[in-house]
């Protein structure tokens, strides 16, 4: 017969095991219920900065990164940074807005694709692709001192 302390021990292990499984399945939702650790913060920041780094390389026309992410951002030698050094004049803080050059209400991702297709004469990229997220990460990171002014011309 199982005694009380053994039962409690099994119960405790089951709860821990269940929590581990649940954390693996549910992931970030559960992670947010625990106090964040410095180690976790570092990992989250590194994950973000890795995307910024990739976006920086794409933005500056790095051939290896374009190939790695399977994108053709220009066919003329052009790179985003040629009109937007340090991602200036990209104005991520002003999106979404009515974009006169597209004659529609647009997001930053719409604008990125418009620039790839028109001035850069490249091939539009999937708005959900890693390349798009990396470009968005770099552009927003570079402008992270700016104040949000959505809708501003």
């Amino acid at each position, binding site marked *: 017969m199982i005694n009380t302390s053994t039962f409690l021990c099994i119960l405790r292990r089951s709860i821990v095991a269940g929590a581990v499984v649940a954390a693996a399945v549910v992931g970030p939702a559960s992670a947010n219920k625990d106090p964040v650790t410095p180690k976790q913060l570092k990992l989250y920041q590194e994950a973000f900065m890795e995307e910024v780094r990739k976006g920086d390389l794409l933005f500056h026309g790095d051939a290896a990164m374009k190939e790695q992410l399977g994108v053709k951002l220009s066919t003329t030698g052009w790179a985003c940074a040629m009109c937007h*050094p340090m991602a200036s004049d990209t104005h991520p803080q002003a999106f979404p807005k009515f974009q006169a050059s597209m004659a529609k209400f647009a997001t930053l991702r719409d604008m990125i694709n418009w620039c790839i297709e028109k001035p850069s004469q490249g091939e539009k990229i999937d708005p959900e692709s890693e390349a798009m997220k990396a470009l968005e990460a770099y552009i927003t990171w570079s*402008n992270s001192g700016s104040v949000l002014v959505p809708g*501003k011309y």
Partner: protein
Amino acid sequence: MSDELDRIRREMHAVLQQPGVRPDDSLQITRRTFIHRSLLFGAASVGQTFAWWPLLNTIDVAHAAEAPFKFAWISDTHLYERSLNTRFVDKVVRAVQEVQAMDPPADFLIFGGDLAQLGKIEELELGVELLKDLTIKKYYIPGEHDWYLDMGQKWGELFGQPNWTFDHKGVRFIGLDTVSRGPDYWTAKKMTPEERMGHMATLDGTVAGAWAGVGRDQLDWMQKTLADWDKSKPIVIFSHNPLYEYYPPWNFWVRDWREVNDVLKPYTKVTNIHGHVHQVLYNEIGSMRSIGMLATSWPWPYAPEGLPKLTKPMIRVDPGDPFDGVGWETVNVNADDKVDVEYIMWGRKEVFVQSPEDHDKSIAEVIRSRIADKQYPWANP
């Protein structure tokens, strides 16, 4: 970065913008110049100043030429090979045709650097071929894009000495090389010529650093060149980079602007005309006026900080039109003591902003320097 820039800027103002020091006080101040000057005093916020700027496409600079004449300026064509990029070729062809069609013709053309994009032989030769249709006398100064693949070898074969001087109708002209004396960032890191060029060709790159400068040897040459020139006679100096400090992270400066000022200080009628910035730019520093020229290739945005207060900004361009925000210039040197720079911006009647919203800085931005080229293998130890 801002703190360091602020420090440099404060020093520049203390050295170059002392009370009572400005270009050529003895000459007439035109209405346009006067309006520009007035912006220095009082609270010149963006909103207030726009309302005061008149509708003008020219900048007046005072001079005393023996006889009126005009010359043309083309720069920053950034040519790739023809098979890769035809838009840049089309724009050079257009500029050449328009300069050739000037009536009366220009006395000469100044090409202000960055003929090529990546310094390749094919790119430089394409530039020569396209400019061949222009039959007036041509003078060339180099840009960094022309230089750092083979350290100026091909450029020298095509155009000769990068710095030069000549006199024309009472004006002494000087061409400077502000690109070839960049500190060596490539040897220790064992870069290939293509890698060296790639870093140099990235305006916002951090690896090539503050490469723009005149250099002590060339300053001595300029001093010697000017030694026999009357202090009150006009001098026009061409350079790829501006000869003052506007925005060092993009090399919108020369790092030895103090020494440049020392050499030019005794001369009262100095005008510097420069490329590199791909934008309308005007400043007065010490006894010199400085005028920035348009590219034919593409416009750079104004730097996030440091735009000279005397600059009336150019209009915000349409990125969907390859011919917008770019073009070439004529410079009229008149007998009535004026030099008139006219910006020929294709597709635009109004070169300058007409309202705050027309300025590319109407959306305030705070931006950071890039990171990817600060990491291995380009990181500094």
